């Protein structure tokens, strides 16, 4: 018997497994390793703190998300021994593979920032990238009667790079509904040189921050947090006081990546941009948040990558050359508050542009512009996620980005 082993049964790993199920030649088995009994719908975490989503609606038993015939091994991974083509599991057992798929995601690492963890963690300093964090933040927001709320991105890359902005837009809404918006100061502290860094998005969406009264502290690289004094200190010694901190901590890959010597400085795995093969390893593919690719760490990226990885796994089995199928394609809905949302669609080479998606001229979704339809699209997306994306059903959305239906403003042609 020959084995395909997938590490991680989150969005990316589950989609690859379900893609491959039923397509493998006789003599090949499919195993997926993940210690967690539940599959979490991560896009829902954004809504938990505001009480517009409930924890029980965001999780499903992992077993229900994997097609019959996929063997799920419910264990953690100690390390990958790439020379021996084996995975060492938590209990010491060794699992041999012929082809390995790394879909082990990314995790927040608040411990990387001096002073971020402490008695104040999940009291006055929060995250919303974990179920515990988002739930604690819900309590903190409910008890917040005014003051300065700082959303701080510690460093890039992070999962879902637009989520911090969405959080601020939804916070503006939330405090407005509670009638205390005038007593709350919203501040976005980012290590980048602005809330929007791409020229067309920046020109098109800059108004949102002004309209919603969100202050931006740019090029703020957090060096330490003083939880008692409620202060952020940057590496260039700027101080930023807060009453409530919503931190998006440093992200890193799974701990076993470091133990296996497969990762970069943040334990993300160096990956070929278009074939998704691990650099220097001809039997390891990587996708989703686990890669070091300059594409976004987002579910849509994992979706577009999953077809390419499944295809390349089958090609490796058949002894064919790999497809250079991934172009960095990503699309995401961005909640902008007030029951509206934006949609962006882009890849390695093309920045987010205005237009319509997926049908040129018709949409129904508007690119790089606010609309109610986009918001409904974001909400409908949860159903699509569980019922079409995870089971890897064929969708009428090409994995490569299309320029059809997009407009590039004339003055931005050679930005």
């Amino acid at each position, binding site marked *: 018997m020959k084995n395909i082993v997938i590490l991680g049964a989150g969005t990316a790993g589950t989609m690859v497994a379900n893609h491959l199920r039923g397509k493998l030649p006789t003599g090949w088995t499919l195993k997926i390793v993940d210690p967690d009994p539940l599959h979490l719908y991560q896009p829902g975490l954004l809504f938990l703190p505001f009480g517009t989503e409930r924890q029980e609606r965001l999780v499903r038993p992992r077993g229900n998300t994997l097609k019959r015939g996929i063997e799920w091994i419910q264990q953690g991974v100690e390390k990958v021994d790439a020379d021996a083509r084996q995975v060492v599991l938590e209990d010491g057992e060794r699992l041999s593979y012929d082809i390995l798929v790394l879909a082990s995601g990314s995790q927040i690492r608040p411990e990387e920032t001096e002073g971020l963890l402490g008695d104040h963690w999940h009291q006055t300093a929060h995250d919303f990238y974990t179920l515990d964090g988002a739930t604690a933040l819900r309590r903190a927001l409910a008890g917040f009667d005014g003051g300065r709320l700082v959303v701080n991105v510690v460093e890039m890359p992070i999962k879902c790079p637009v989520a911090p902005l969405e959080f601020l837009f939804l916070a503006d809404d939330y405090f407005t509904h509670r009638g205390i918006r005038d007593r709350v100061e919203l501040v976005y502290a980012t290590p980048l040189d602005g809330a929007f860094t*791409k*020229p067309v998005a920046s020109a098109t969406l800059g108004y949102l921050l002004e309209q919603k009264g969100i202050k931006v502290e740019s090029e703020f690289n957090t060096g330490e947090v003083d939880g008692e004094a409620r202060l952020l200190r940057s*590496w260039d010694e700027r101080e930023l006081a807060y009453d409530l901190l919503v931190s998006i901590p440093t992200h890193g890959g799974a701990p076993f990546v470091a133990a296996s010597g497969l990762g970069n*400085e943040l334990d993300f795995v160096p990956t070929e941009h278009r074939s998704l093969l691990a650099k220097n390893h001809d039997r390891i593919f990587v996708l989703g948040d686990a890669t070091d690719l300059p594409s*976004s760490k987002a579910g849509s990226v994992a979706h577009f990558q999953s077809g390419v990885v499944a295809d390349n796994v089958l090609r490796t089995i058949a002894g064919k050359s790999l497809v250079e199928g991934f172009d960095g394609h990503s699309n995401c809905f961005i909640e902008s508050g007030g029951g509206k949302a934006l949609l962006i669609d882009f890849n390695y080479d093309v920045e987010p542009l205005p237009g319509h998606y997926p049908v040129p001229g018709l949409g129904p979704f508007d690119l790089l512009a606010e609309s109610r339809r986009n918001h409904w699209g974001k909400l409908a997306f949860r159903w699509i996620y569980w019922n079409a994306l995870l089971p890897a059903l064929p969708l009428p959305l090409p994995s490569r980005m299309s320029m059809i239906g997009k407009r590039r403003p004339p003055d931005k042609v050679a930005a």
Partner: protein
Amino acid sequence: MTTLEAVGKTIELNNEGFLLDADQWTPELAETLAETVGLGPLSDKHWQVITFCREDAAREGQSPGLRRISKLSGVSMKELYQLFPKGPGKLAAKVAGLPKPQACI
């Protein structure tokens, strides 16, 4: 787009002052680019960072982030802020003739 007359050539920069054509970069041009962002003459330490950034970008296909620079170039975070005040990642990329470190939007 803007242009800069330097090292006997017309150098094309984007609206934020980043080099458009990476092949136009030379060490002399780096000195000129450094002046445009208010950095004095480049020291050996500056060059240690710039050289690392260029080699790393050639290998990885993207400008290195701040953590990567501080971890792998041998220059500490504190020093990076002294050498390239305010935004070391962005300034080092600019002087090294690399694209600006970006987010998706």
